[in-house]
C-alpha cells in the first residue's frame, strides 16, 4: 500500500514536471517566435534606414562626379557592415556603381530597396542582410533562458517532491493506510458476519453454533481470542464459557468469571451482560489497568477488547467477548457489524432452541413427558436392528393401569391425568440410561429394555409394579398395573414382539391384574 502511494506520489511529481516542462517549451517557443518576428521587423527597419543613409551619402559625390569617392564610401560601408549580404548601387539602368555579394550563410535574409533621384539619375540602393547571426544569437538567448527555466523547473519539482513527501503525502498516506486497514478489518468483519450467518443455517446444535461463530470471528478477523459465555442465573451469577477460539494462553481458566457487580464481574462480558449493551475497551492498559482481567489480558498481549450482549426477547442469553492485539482495535463500524453478528447469534440460539423444542414435542407425550407412540415405534425398529447386528437380547414390557376408567369416573379426568403423570414418574425413576419409556396410548405404557433377557425384564417390571402398588397417587386408595413381558426372538418382527407382549399383558389381566406375566 505504501509502495502504491509512493508510486502515486512519483506519478504526481512526474505529471507536474511534464506540465511545467511543456509550459516552458511553449513559452520558449512563443518567445522565440515573437522575438524572431520583432528581429525581422527591426532588421527591416534598420536596413531601410541604412539604404536611405547610403543614398544620402552618395548624393554629393555623385553630383560632383566623384564616383571613386562614392565607391570608396560604399566599400567602407560594406566592410563596416559585415552582416550585409548584398550591397548594390545602380544609377538608372547603367552598370552597377558598386556591387557586393557574399555567399548566403542561410536562407533567412531580408531585402530593402531604396530609390531616389540624384541629378538626372534614379539612384537605386539595394541591400540584403543575413539574419542567421541574429537568429543564432536569439536562439542562444532562448536556449539559455529555457535552460535556466528548465533548471528552475527541476529545482521546483525537487522542492515539490520534498514538500509533498515530507509534509503532505506522507501524513495523507498514513491516514489512507489507516483507513485502508480499517476497511480491511471491516471486510473481515463482514466476512465473519457472512460465515457466521452460514453457521446459523447449518449448525445442528447450540454448542456447535457457538463454537463455529467463535472460530469464524477469530479466523476471519484475526482476533487472538473470541469466546462466548452464558450468563447463568445461579446464586453466584456465574459466567459459563460455552465456546472459545484462538490462543488464550490460559486466560479464561485463570479468571473467576461471573457477571455480578463484583471483582469477578469486571470483565467486558460481565459489564455487557449487566448493561445489556456493547462494551468497548479501546485501551486495556489505560482503561482496565489494575483489574484482574485487565492484567491477565495485558500479560497475554491483548491491548483492546469488546463484549456484546446476546439478548433474546430482551432477556440475556450470553455475551460475546473479543480481544485484539492492538489498541483501538474496534471501530464503530466494526462494533456495528459485531453487534449485528451478536443479534444474529441470539436469533440463531433462539431458533435452535425452538427447533429442539419442536423436535422434542414431536416424539414426546405431552402429558407425561415420556416418549410417544411414534418415537417408541422408531426406537423399537432401531433396537431390533441393533439386537440382530450384535446378537444381544432385548425385551419389551407393556403396562396398563388397572381399572383406570373407574379412576376417571370417580375422581375426574384431572385426577386421572395426575395418576398417569405419577405412573410416568415411576417409570422415569426406574429408567436406566439405555432404557426407553413411553406412553403407548390411554393408560397403556411401554418400556423397551435393551440387553435385557426375559428374566431381567421381568425383574424390572416387577420392581415397577411394586412401586406402583405402593403409591396411591393422591387418590387415597391403591392403584395397580398389569405387565406383559416379551423378549425378542431372532427373526421376529417388532409387530410380532408387541403381539406377544400384548398377549402376556392380556394374560396378566386375565389372571387377576397387578401382576407381571412373561411370555
Amino acid at each position, binding site marked *: 500500500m505504501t509502495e502504491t502511494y509512493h508510486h502515486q506520489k512519483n506519478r504526481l511529481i512526474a505529471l507536474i514536471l511534464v506540465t511545467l516542462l511543456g509550459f516552458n517549451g511553449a513559452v520558449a517557443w512563443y518567445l522565440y517566435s515573437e522575438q524572431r518576428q520583432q528581429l525581422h521587423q527591426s532588421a527591416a527597419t534598420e536596413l531601410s534606414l541604412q539604404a536611405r543613409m547610403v543614398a544620402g551619402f552618395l548624393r554629393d559625390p555623385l553630383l560632383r*562626379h566623384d564616383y*571613386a569617392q562614392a*565607391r570608396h564610401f560604399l566599400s567602407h560601408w560594406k566592410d563596416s557592415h559585415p552582416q550585409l549580404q548584398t550591397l548594390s548601387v545602380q544609377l538608372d539602368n547603367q552598370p552597377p556603381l558598386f556591387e557586393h555579394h557574399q555567399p548566403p550563410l542561410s536562407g533567412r535574409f531580408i531585402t530593402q530597396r531604396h530609390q531616389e533621384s540624384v541629378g538626372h539619375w534614379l539612384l537605386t540602393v539595394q541591400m540584403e542582410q543575413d539574419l542567421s547571426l541574429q537568429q543564432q544569437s536569439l536562439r542562444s538567448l532562448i536556449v539559455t533562458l529555457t535552460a535556466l527555466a528548465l533548471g528552475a523547473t527541476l529545482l521546483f519539482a525537487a522542492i515539490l517532491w520534498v514538500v509533498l513527501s515530507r509534509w503532505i503525502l506522507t501524513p495523507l498516506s498514513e491516514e489512507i493506510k489507516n483507513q485502508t486497514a480499517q476497511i480491511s478489518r471491516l471486510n473481515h468483519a463482514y466476512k465473519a458476519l457472512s460465515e457466521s450467518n452460514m453457521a446459523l443455517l447449518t449448525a445442528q446444535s447450540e454448542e456447535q453454533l457457538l463454537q463455529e461463530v467463535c472460530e469464524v470471528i477469530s479466523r476471519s478477523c484475526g482476533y487472538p481470542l473470541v469466546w462466548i459465555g452464558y450468563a447463568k442465573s445461579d446464586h453466584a451469577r456465574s459466567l459459563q464459557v460455552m465456546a472459545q477460539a484462538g490462543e488464550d494462553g490460559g486466560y479464561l481458566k485463570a479468571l473467576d468469571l461471573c457477571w455480578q457487580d463484583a471483582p469477578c464481574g469486571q470483565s467486558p462480558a460481565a459489564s455487557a451482560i449487566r448493561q445489556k449493551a456493547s462494551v468497548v475497551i479501546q485501551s486495556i492498559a489505560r482503561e482496565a489497568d489494575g483489574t484482574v482481567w485487565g492484567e491477565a489480558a495485558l500479560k497475554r498481549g491483548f491491548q483492546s477488547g469488546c463484549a456484546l450482549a446476546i439478548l433474546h426477547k430482551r432477556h440475556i442469553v450470553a455475551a460475546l467477548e473479543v480481544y485484539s492485539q492492538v489498541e483501538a482495535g474496534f471501530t464503530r463500524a466494526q462494533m456495528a457489524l459485531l453487534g449485528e453478528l451478536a443479534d444474529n447469534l441470539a436469533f440463531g440460539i433462539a431458533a435452535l432452541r425452538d427447533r429442539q423444542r419442536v423436535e422434542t414435542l414431536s416424539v414426546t407425550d405431552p402429558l407425561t413427558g415420556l416418549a410417544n407412540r411414534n418415537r417408541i415405534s422408531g426406537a423399537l425398529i432401531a433396537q431390533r436392528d441393533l439386537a440382530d447386528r450384535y446378537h444381544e437380547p432385548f425385551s419389551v414390557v407393556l403396562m396398563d393401569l388397572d381399572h383406570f376408567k373407574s379412576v376417571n369416573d370417580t375422581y375426574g379426568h384431572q385426577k386421572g391425568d395426575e395418576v398417569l403423570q405419577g405412573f410416568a414418574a415411576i417409570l422415569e425413576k426406574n429408567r436406566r440410561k439405555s432404557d426407553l419409556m413411553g406412553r403407548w396410548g390411554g393408560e397403556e405404557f411401554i418400556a423397551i429394555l435393551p440387553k435385557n433377557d426375559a428374566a431381567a425384564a421381568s425383574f424390572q417390571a416387577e420392581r415397577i409394579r411394586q412401586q406402583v402398588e405402593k403409591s396411591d397417587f393422591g387418590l387415597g386408595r391403591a392403584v395397580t398395573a398389569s405387565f406383559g413381558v416379551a423378549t425378542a426372538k431372532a427373526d421376529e418382527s417388532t409387530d410380532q414382539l408387541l403381539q406377544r407382549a400384548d398377549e402376556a399383558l392380556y394374560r396378566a389381566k386375565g389372571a387377576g391384574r397387578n401382576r407381571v406375566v412373561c411370555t
Partner: protein
Amino acid sequence: MLKVVLLFLVVSLGVADRIKIGFMPYLSAQTIHDRYTPLADHLSWVLDRPVRIVVARNHAHQAELFKKGAVDVAFLGGNPYVRIVEAVGPQPILARFAFGGAPHFRSVIIVREDSPLTALEQLQNKRIALGDPHSTLSSEVPLDLLHQAGLEADDLASITHLSNHENILYGVLFGAFEAGAVAEEIFMENRHRGLRALSYSEPLSTHLFIAHSSLEDADVRAIKERLLTLHQSPQGQRILRAIHPNLSGFVPGEDSDYDAHRAILKRLP
C-alpha cells in the same frame, strides 16, 4: 616633463628618418594606398626605414610638395615631370613603368560601348570628361589629340576636369559625359564594364619615379636598384600585380624619353 621631451625627440627623429613617396591623384587616394602599400612596405623593409605614401590633392599640389622637398620620391606622369624639370632642373629618374615589357603607354579617349560616336570629329558639342588639367594622359594628351583632330575647347559642349581616371570612366559609363580620356591601362582594366576606345594617342613614355635632390645617394641607389629588380622575385611580382595586373616591372628611364611630352606641351595652347 622629462617624458614629454623624450616623446618629442622620438617623434622628431621618426619624422626625420621617414621616406615619403608623393603620388599624383591619378586614381582615388584609397585606390592608390591600396595598390602601392605593398611597394612601400617592401621599400621600408629594404631601406630599414619607414616609407610613407602621400597622395597630393592634384598635380599642382604634388609639384609644390616636390619643389619644397616635402616628399623624397615623386610618382609623376610625363608632363608633370617635364614641368618640374623646367622649374627645378634635372632630377634623378629612379625607374619608369613597363607594361607587358614595354615602357610606353597611351592615352585613350573612351565612349560607352553603345555610343554612336566613331570618330573624334563627332565629339563636337559633346560633353567631355578629363582628369586634372595637368594630368598627362587624362587631360593634356587628349586635348592635344582633339587639337590635332581640329577640335578646340570651344567646339565642345563642355570640358569637365574630374579628380581621377576612375571618375572619368564612371562618368562616361553612367552617361554623365559622352566621352572621356584615361590612361590606357585604366581603360583596359575597366573596358569590360561597357566602354569602348574612340581614339588612342601615340605611345608615350610611362609614368616614372624621381628622387628629390635632397635624398641621400645611397638611398637613391638602393631604391632604384630595388625597383629595377623587383620583377625578378616572386614577392616583387606580387607587388607589381598589386599596382596593376599588366605591370611587368620597372625599367630605367632617361630625360630624353620624355621629349614627346615636351612636344605635346608646346603644341597645347
